[in-house]
């Protein structure tokens, strides 16, 4: 395990604005889930809290359940309800 292993987190639309940024790296630790990354983000950036119930989670461009266990180097994205079209 290298000390630099990380998970890339992407935030879009309302989540990006609530967090004040669209991209950050968080340290990887074995067994960490998407939901745990969100909880950590929410602690640091309370403006994200109202979005907790409605964000979808994607890992490496695929929708996944929140309890998905991450791997080092994963691209994790938190997606507010989409509104294309």
């Amino acid at each position: 395990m290298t000390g630099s292993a990380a998970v890339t987190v992407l935030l879009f639309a309302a989540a990006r604005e609530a967090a004040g940024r669209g991209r950050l790296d968080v340290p990887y630790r074995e067994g960490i889930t998407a939901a745990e990354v969100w909880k950590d983000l929410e602690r640091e950036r309370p403006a994200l809290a109202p979005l907790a119930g409605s964000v979808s989670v994607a890992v490496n461009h695929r929708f996944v359940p929140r309890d998905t266990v991450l791997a080092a180097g994963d691209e994790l994205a938190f997606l507010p309800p989409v509104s294309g079209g």
Partner: protein
Amino acid sequence: MERFRITAEPLDEHAIAEGLSTSEDGAVVVFSGIVRAQNKGRKVLHLEYEAYEAMVYPVFERVAEDVRERFGVERLRIHHRIGRVDIGESSVLVAAASPHRGSAFEAARHTMNEIKRIVPIWKREFFEGGDVWVEGPKEPVTE
């Protein structure tokens, strides 16, 4: 013409259908979604679209596969704008070609429904007096 396209440039509803149909096809449906000047009682000035582009393309592929399985429609294109889109402009085009009109209409309708449900694109509505992120279904997508 690309099957799937995300672009900041105006969409072309004629170009999207060019070369799409084969000699087996009896129908081409082109749907154009355009920006209207009012929404929920507000006077809309323009929209701005944001996309998670790296994920949009695989989700378009998933939608096309779903359309193929449900309706047997194999010739489908989806073009979507990002950035600012003004009143009256197309924000999205869907083109479907099929031997019969029923399946072409159904394919276009289902594709639009899926775009609004699972494709990672968001619109911000700028209206007189403010702006707001428009949000679709609140139930998270998990698969």
